């Protein structure tokens, strides 16, 4: 990103009155019908979903409302249909596999993967917390939770953690999808509201993007956390529901009472669902960048590994080991660098920040000449090109740049830069023997940048046993089960006015 480009685009959006595309290609894989998930929580209940809506986008959604999500029986019963359906969809997506050559080895990866779309990054976090809660449920009072809940928890936890991989498309928060592909007038905080983002892209006739998003933000709440006015309604309905059920949790007694709360959440989800459908349909129209399929293949590979692991009864640690963290960091850094490079190399609009910051140059090839230079032993063939740029170039000799057409191949080294009219003439030498595919032609307008898309570095696996430096001198105490204490009554509410403030000024 570039502050200068952001400022320019914001000014243009303000001037034109509607959002502008900041890319010419779509850099995220979008399935035909991703699984949409919308979630609402109770205020202050970060681990509990008060309502979950799910279904294939383009179709209707199903809605699970627990009534009282703090009651374990009601909560699990409401979540079970969602969990069962999610598990079935995941397994179905992983059933059919295709062979892929990886070096000398052939491996099987799923043909597809279940893609989940959610309205915003906050929902990713909420699903991750829900997954963490469900994945580690233990028996209580001899009653085991439905296995589908635990399995769904593992899936949700996997999906949420996988969003750390730059360019992934297994779990797509639509606010990020829009922010990466559109320039709007919204601050990062305001971008969390998908309705506000969408309104800037397609404002009503004669309404400026700014006013359209302000109105949309007030009109459409996206969740998962309720605003105060929503929570007030929820609280009243919840109080009525709890009073009516009188502590009962059996389905026959509770189901007839849940209608008002269900209606409340239905009204909250309906506009969000329409919004998600509109956003996904619009972004599907944009042609996908060439590297999207490669990144989705990496997603499928991770998805297949996860499903196989869960199917074999595997469990995930709640926290990484030092080894896992170290290896994950390397993987994430590689993915980050590759995604940044892919976007800019494939999409001229994404190269603009690099051109502005001097990390890329663009110009017309004035000459292409083969020369011979002394290498270690022999003289070797090399090619010099002269590139005439429209803008003045500031690059030191020796800087290595990759031509976007061969960004996965050898770099070009800057030999000299001299003024030429309002721009510069840059002389570059290819650091490899010339071949037709490696050379531009005279008169061709080309871009070179510091970004390259060669294969990721191969990292050796770290030793499984941590060195003494990374092991605690004394082993830590075992943690208590994650749902320990769920059955205990909550502590009494504290009256703030009655508590002495030790830090107050006297």
């Amino acid at each position, binding site marked *: 990103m570039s*502050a*200068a480009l952001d400022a320019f685009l914001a000014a243009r959006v303000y001037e034109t009155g509607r959002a502008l595309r900041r890319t010419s290609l779509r850099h995220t894989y979008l399935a035909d019908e991703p699984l949409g998930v919308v979630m609402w929580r109770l205020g202050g209940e970060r681990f509990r979903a008060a309502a979950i809506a799910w279904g294939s986008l383009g179709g209707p959604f199903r809605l699970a409302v627990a009534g009282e999500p703090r009651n374990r029986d009601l909560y699990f019963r409401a979540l079970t249909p969602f969990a069962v359906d999610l598990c079935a969809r995941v397994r179905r997506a992983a059933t059919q596999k295709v062979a892929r050559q990886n070096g000398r080895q052939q491996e099987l990866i799923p043909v597809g993967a279940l893609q989940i779309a959610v309205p915003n990054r906050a929902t990713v976090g909420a699903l991750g917390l829900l997954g963490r809660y469900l994945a580690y449920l233990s028996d209580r009072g001899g009653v085991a939770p439905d296995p589908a809940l635990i399995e769904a928890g593992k899936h949700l936890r996997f999906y949420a953690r996988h969003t*750390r991989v*730059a360019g992934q498309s297994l779990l797509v928060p639509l606010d990020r999808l829009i922010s990466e592909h559109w320039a709007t007038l919204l601050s990062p905080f305001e971008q969390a509201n998908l309705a506000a983002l969408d309104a800037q892209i397609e404002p009503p006739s004669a309404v400026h993007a700014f006013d359209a998003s302000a109105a949309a933000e007030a009109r459409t709440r996206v969740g998962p956390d309720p605003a105060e006015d929503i929570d007030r309604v929820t609280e009243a309905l919840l109080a009525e529901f709890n009073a009516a059920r009188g502590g009962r949790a059996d389905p026959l007694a509770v189901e007839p009472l849940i209608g008002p709360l269900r209606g409340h959440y239905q009204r909250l989800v309906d506009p969000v669902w329409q919004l998600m459908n509109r956003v996904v349909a619009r972004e599907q129209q944009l042609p996908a960048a060439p590297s999207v399929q490669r990144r989705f293949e990496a997603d499928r590979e991770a998805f297949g590994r996860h499903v196989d692991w869960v199917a074999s009864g595997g469990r995930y640690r709640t*926290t*990484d*080991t*030092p*080894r*896992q*963290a*170290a290896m*994950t*960091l*390397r993987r*994430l*850094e590689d993915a*980050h*660098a590759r995604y940044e490079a892919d976007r800019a190399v494939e999409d001229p609009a994404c190269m603009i920040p690099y051109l*502005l*910051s*001097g*990390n890329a140059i663009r110009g017309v090839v004035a000459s292409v000449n083969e020369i011979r230079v002394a290498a270690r032993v022999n003289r070797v063939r090399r090619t010099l090109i002269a590139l005439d740029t429209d803008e003045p170039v*500031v*690059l*030191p*000799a020796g*800087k290595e740049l990759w031509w976007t057409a061969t960004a996965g191949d050898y770099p070009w080294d800057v030999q000299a*830069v001299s003024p030429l009219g309002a721009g510069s003439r840059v002389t570059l030498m290819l650091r490899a023997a010339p071949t037709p595919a490696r050379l531009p032609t005279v008169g061709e307008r080309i871009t070179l940048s510091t970004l390259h898309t060669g294969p990721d570095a191969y990292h*050796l*696996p*770290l*030793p499984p046993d*941590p*060195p*003494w*430096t*990374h*092991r*605690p*001198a004394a082993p830590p105490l075992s943690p208590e089960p994650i749902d320990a204490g769920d059955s205990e009554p909550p502590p009494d509410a504290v009256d703030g006015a009655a508590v002495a403030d030790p830090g107050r000024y006297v």
Partner: protein
Amino acid sequence: MTAPDTVAPEAMFDQAVVSAAAEVEDTMRAELLSLIGREAAVVAAAPAGAGKSYFVSGTAGLLRREGLRVALVAPTNEQVRSLVARVKQLNPDLPVAFLHAQGRGLPPDIAALPGVSQPTAAEAQRNRDPLVIATVDKLADAFLRYGLGGFDVLVVDEAFQADAARYYAAANVAATHLLVGDTGQLDPFSPIDDAAYWRGGAEDPLQTAVGVLLRNHPSTAVHRIPITWRLAPAAVPIAKCFYPGHVFSAAVRPGVRRLTLVRPGPGSRSLAAVDRALDEAATQGWAHVTLPGTPVLTADPVTGEVIRDLVVRLLARGARARCEDRDPAENLRPTDIAVGVSHNDEKDLLRTLLGDAGLSGVTVDTANRLQGLTFEVMVAWHPLAGSPDIDAFHLDPGRLCVLLTRHRQACIVVGRDTDRALLEGIPPATPGYLGWDPDPVLDGWDAHEGVFRLLEPHVIPA
């Protein structure tokens, strides 16, 4: 007070400071020798210019004389290359095996030193080379790929710059470790969006090598080196902004170092501001050149030109430096000068500007690449210069610390007169992490404010 023209050698150094530092170093070496064969470590925390490389290189020689096999590592190629030179300087007879990645060999002058070899990892393992020097990554790769290990001591220089992930990969090469580093420098960094994901956890791969060691083994002794050999007394108050709680003093006495410039001649009016800045830096050790405040691009050409003018003029005015190593004074060479920046595009701009001025011998680099290096004069492009707002990257106290603690004679800071206003008001809210006390943004806020305050008497409007 005018400094005397010549200074007697015994009067050059503050003997109390030198003795205190020597005592700490002797204690560390004795403790390290007592730990040999055990899974244990000694940690040395040092301010900028404390002579870490000397200590590390000298200790490597001592360990070898005790018949111990030693692996000596640092995070970057530049650092390990200079370690090879330093080890050979202090221990000319000691054979040194330098492991390096492809295309990252030693410069010819160091490679030609007697006893220096550059084996492959497999050769080093086969030969059981007794003193191997490599980057942390290269040693880890050699250990994982070829089983190079079985050392008695692993010595990690710049251990506050090495991250826990890299340390994990290399730590098994020896049981006993010596970690030496500068607490004020840049912390390990990752470009990924949520690099703080593991923060506070024991598994955090981006905590420092020292951090993970002390977290798991809190009884490990940490020794603070109380001296800076590089910085002159005038530089110490500002340097202390980056080392809260660490007591240290300059080794050299006031007046030992002296930077002299020829008076500006007729026709110098257009360079009056540049000359004033150079005079201030030469006499006071600091100058803070401030351009009129305006928001600018990162690689602002105007700031770049001012820095170029300062460097060109510094040499044009026949700068001569006298110090404990150069008496009488000698002419300043381009290689004695460095320009420190925060971004690669600033670096490219300045390398081009200085190259065009015939001064490609001046080092221009980003702060993270300048860590561990020393110059007579430093010109620092202030990280907040012309910035419209502040963020964690530009507030990082480690970045400013590196830029302001590389010099022996003088440092010229170049920014804009609105930079300090960025720190007025309430610091930004920052996330808290269980199990992790530091707050780089608030620490940076404090350090920047302290530096601006101490630079106030040295402000020269451009």
